[in-house]
């Protein structure tokens, strides 16, 4: 390698490298699960309950068997043998109610869309047709839809054998009691906020394909999943197929946002059917089917109360959360609100914090992780009530935050909720955001419009957030009763020709790990970016991993790549010292080259070392012929990105329409590996957070039918509905990992929803409006104005 090439390889971290993933994606040479064809492939279709809650009195699949092209059909009872309950890995309390969750309902359906039978046919058209021949009779049971009514003693039960709809109660109290804080307070404010249900809408619908080798009992499962490694363990548990006989592959996966952080019934059923028939089976969800069958996000009632002094100093915070579990507990359903429990105090200092969460079963699609998972909800409630408190005290909302946030000189700081925030600089991010936004000018314009009584009002919303991400220290997970650890694995294979394979346990589905992990490895090893290949998403080639969710991949998985690469260098150093006849201490390693201090002509590249190691001809005594390295990183702490988001909206008070005029965010995600990718993550997060504020809601009618049941009714915003964003960063490195990174996948979503709603309310506050329920639809805004002026 020439010196120039070596030079070019240096300093990859921090560069906006274009993505390695793009070539296949922009030319259509993709490998989505639904693309995969194998000989003899059968297609599975699922018949789903049209009712929210009913006893199944009869299911007869035999008429379906008469239909052309149909190979088999099964009821829940047919498949019950050898198919256990779907797992919940996060029983948050000792006495949590854990209902049985058969992959196909046997006796009772508990939400519209609950599977009742499957048919298997030679093509997807025949399978769809045959569903119509399956005969099912239902005996309707009362739906359970209202979270508070569901807790009443005489409420109809989702799981009658459990005797209650209360899934769990999870309390947390720290500092002084809230009651004593309240007694000291000059002001207390109590508000109720609603987190509407959201449908994640990853653009690729779910799909799963199973190819069996019946003779040896081996199965390969291809799934549009975020979690091939966890899925393998869980499918082994659910089906009884030994774990080592299962291989799970996540091919190209088209987005997840939490919705593919799941062990789904269809995955277990496809495996069970492939085992039963000894033939490959594929199931692909349609979008409207997914609206019923893929888990939803949010779905909470938040009662939040603050106590503060006249000067605006927070004394205490009390949160009473009622969380909709839906009909069953899925992989981490009960834990989602608990992730939020630690985030309500956010960036603020206070003396008292009380939190209580009640999980409630309803006859709706189960909830589980959706981008942010508990933390957007928490951030929304605290940031909304901070604005209300500012209004109550006659303070500028930014000033109120300034009076309460943790000063940059106070880090590390242990929050009232018990988290130790390692680093942060809220002042810097806020100052930068205010300047980019033109805060003072916009406030002046707002005042003019208010004085003129304009029909179209201007509102300004702020959100200063932090989040806990980089999930997660395994010991903390133990304390939270999560069933697994939070580590991540990486290994590096130095190939004889000097090329490098990075094997990661993370499982990307749009995040760009192939690019970023290449940057990290190239930087540490001093090899060209192009010479690195990232291997992921297949339990055979990347056997150890905890997968991708919770903004964890970089701060845990990327850190593992960094550490593994560092290990490779240390192993190579021993070989280099031997070959250069120098001591290890006398070697410098720069840009991929070991050189003897003081005699730079005595040098070996790391590629040369890789080859020498491969031949094994001249290794020091006791050194095995490999400089490959692997590592598993268990993080010591969460990471805590933070930032300040500012949103200006124009609200037409006559029609209720809200238009975002400008949006500025300054995020601090620590050091960044690839600024271009970070910016993209922020943009996407903003879009989803804004969508919650203004557009999206999974709406059920009184019978428990999902009314927003297709993409024509559930309003995912398009390019024409969203503004340009102004994004910038401050960079306060995390102290909890070597790279100083924090993670960025969820920041935009967490921060943006309250910024937008605060702006809407701010626009209308002079008219007497103090809240608008999400999504802030034109009609809701119009009604809020009308009711306030009445």
């Amino acid at each position: 390698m020439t010196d120039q090439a070596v030079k070019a390889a240096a300093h990859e971290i921090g560069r906006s490298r274009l993505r390695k993933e793009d070539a296949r994606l922009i030319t259509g040479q993709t490998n989505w699960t639904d693309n995969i064809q194998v000989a003899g492939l059968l297609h599975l279709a699922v018949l789903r309950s049209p009712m929210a809650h009913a006893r199944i009195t009869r299911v007869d699949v035999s008429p379906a068997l008469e239909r052309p092209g149909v190979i088999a059909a099964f009821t829940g009872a047919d498949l019950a043998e050898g198919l256990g309950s779907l797992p919940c890995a996060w029983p948050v309390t000792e006495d949590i109610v854990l209902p049985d969750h058969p992959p196909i309902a046997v006796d009772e359906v508990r939400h519209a869309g609950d599977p009742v039978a499957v048919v298997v046919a030679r093509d997807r058209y025949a399978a769809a047709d045959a569903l119509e021949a399956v005969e099912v009779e239902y005996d309707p049971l009362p739906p359970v839809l209202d979270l508070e009514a569901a807790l009443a003693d005489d409420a109809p039960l989702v799981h009658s054998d459990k005797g209650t709809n209360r899934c769990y109660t999870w309390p947390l109290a720290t500092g002084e009691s809230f009651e004593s804080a309240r007694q000291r307070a000059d002001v207390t404010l109590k508000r109720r906020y609603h987190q509407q249900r959201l449908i994640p809408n990853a653009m690729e619908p779910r799909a799963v394909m199973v190819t069996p080798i019946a003779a040896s009992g081996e199965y390969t499962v291809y799934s549009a999943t975020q979690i091939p490694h966890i899925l393998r363990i869980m499918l082994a548990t659910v089906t009884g197929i030994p774990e080592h006989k299962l291989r799970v592959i996540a091919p190209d996966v088209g987005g997840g946002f939490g919705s593919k952080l799941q062990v789904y019934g269809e995955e277990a059923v496809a495996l069970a059917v492939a085992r039963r028939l000894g033939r490959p089976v594929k199931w692909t969800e349609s979008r409207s089917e997914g609206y019923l069958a893929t888990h939803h996000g949010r779905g909470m009632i938040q009662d939040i109360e603050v106590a503060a002094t006249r000067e605006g100093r927070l004394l205490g915070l009390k949160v009473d959360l009622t969380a909709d579990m839906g009909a069953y507990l899925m992989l981490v359903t009960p834990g989602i609100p608990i992730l939020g429990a630690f985030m309500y105090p956010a960036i603020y200092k206070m003396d008292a914090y009380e939190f209580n969460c009640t999980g409630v079963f309803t006859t709706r699609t189960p909830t589980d992780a959706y981008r942010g998972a508990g933390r957007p909800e928490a951030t929304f409630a605290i940031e909304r009530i901070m604005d209300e408190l500012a209004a109550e005290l006659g303070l500028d909302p930014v000033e109120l935050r300034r009076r309460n946030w943790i000063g940059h000189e106070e880090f590390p700081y242990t929050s009232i909720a018990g988290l130790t925030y390692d680093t942060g600089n809220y002042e810097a991010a806020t100052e930068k955001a205010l300047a980019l936004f033109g805060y003072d000018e916009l406030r002046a314009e707002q005042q003019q419009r208010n004085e003129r009584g304009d029909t179209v009002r201007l509102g300004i919303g702020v959100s200063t957030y932090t989040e806990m991400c980089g999930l997660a220290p395994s010991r903390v997970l133990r304390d939270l009763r999560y069933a697994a650890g939070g580590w991540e694995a990486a290994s590096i294979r130095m190939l004889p020709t000097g090329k490098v394979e990075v094997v990661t346990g993370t499982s990307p589905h749009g995040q760009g790990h192939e690019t970023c992990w290449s940057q990290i490895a190239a930087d540490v090893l001093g090899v060209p970016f192009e010479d690195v290949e990232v291997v992921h998403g297949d339990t055979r080639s990347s056997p150890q991993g905890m997968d991708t969710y919770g903004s964890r991949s970089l701060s845990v998985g990327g850190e593992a790549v960094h550490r593994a690469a560092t290990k490779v260098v240390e192993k190579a150093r021993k070989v280099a010292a031997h070959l250069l006849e120098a001591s290890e201490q006398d070697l410098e390693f720069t840009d991929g080259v070991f050189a003897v201090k003081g005699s730079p002509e005595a040098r070996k590249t790391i590629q040369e070392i890789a080859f020498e190691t491969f031949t094994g001809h001249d290794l020091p005594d006791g050194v095995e012929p490999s400089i490959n390295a692997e590592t598993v990183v268990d993080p010591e702490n969460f990471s805590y990105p933070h930032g300040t988001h500012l949103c200006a909206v124009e609200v037409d008070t006559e029609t209720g329409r809200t238009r975002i005029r400008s949006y500025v965010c300054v995020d601090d995600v620590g050091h960044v590996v690839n600024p271009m990718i970070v910016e993209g993550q922020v943009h996407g997060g903003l879009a989803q957070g804004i969508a919650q504020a203004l557009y999206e809601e999974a709406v059920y009618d009184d019978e428990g039918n999902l009314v927003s049941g297709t993409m024509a009714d559930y309003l995912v915003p398009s390019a024409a509905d969203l503004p340009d964003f102004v994004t910038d960063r401050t960079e306060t490195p995390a102290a909890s990992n070597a790279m100083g990174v924090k993670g960025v996948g969820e920041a935009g979503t967490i921060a943006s929803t309250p910024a937008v709603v605060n702006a809407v309310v701010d626009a209308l506050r002079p008219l007497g409006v103090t809240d608008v329920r999400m999504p802030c639809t034109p009609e809701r805004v119009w009604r809020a104005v009308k009711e306030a002026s009445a």
Partner: protein
Amino acid sequence: MIPPAFEYARPSSVGEAVRTLADAGEEAKVLAGGQSLLPLLRLRLAFPELVVDVGRIPELRGVREDGDTLVIGALTTHHDVLRDPLVRRHAGLLAEATATVADPAVRHRGTLGGSLAHADPAGDLPAVALALDAELVAAGPGGRRVIPAREFFVDYLQSALAPDELLVEVRIPKTDGWGFHYEKFQRVAQAWAIVGVAALVRRADGHIAEARIGLTNMGSTPLRATAAEQALSGADGPQAVARAAEAAAEGTRPSQDLSASPEYREHLARVLTRRAVLAAGGTG
């Protein structure tokens, strides 16, 4: 996701199409651009035994003049309508409203005739056809008949076409010299209108001589805001327009759905009518 099975016919002339429809009776569906029918089939909300694809009948496409009338073939796509120089010159309201229909790919396939025959009160073009006093020409076994737009929209998703009739032309009296505007109010760009107002305004002697207002999604059919139209006649200035627009919801029966309540729709009809008329030149 998967359409149910159906038989398929692809007639090459209007006569053949009408004969095919007559033979099939009630169980046939006409396929024009398919942008309304295909989603219905895919969600299995329609189960036709026969789909009659009229997409290859050349005589159904194109725009021509017939004296004071513009004649648009039923199969003319939205894309072609909104770019057609004759439409833009003589029926600007139609061009403007068509540009708001769905998205570019759907406009490439979707047709004017298909949109009208689908008779969806939430569709943009039925209210526009009403406001333009369009006439719809149907071909049937007994020949052709002309149906005024006011009689064409019978009920929700129900037109005056008999099962064996095919919509072949839309005849639009030219509105040269009229001001026009289509005010569409929706939650996201792709969504159906919560309410839409199609306004045509003819001015004379410094005031509104005549106004025609078509309402989208204010009942089970598209509607004319007759009371507002009468009130607008002779109106002069923004205040007068605003007063007249207060009558825009009279006689409407809007529905309750995910996007809006009837009360809100009535409110919007009044606000949007005022805005549409003002934008259409209602203040001179």
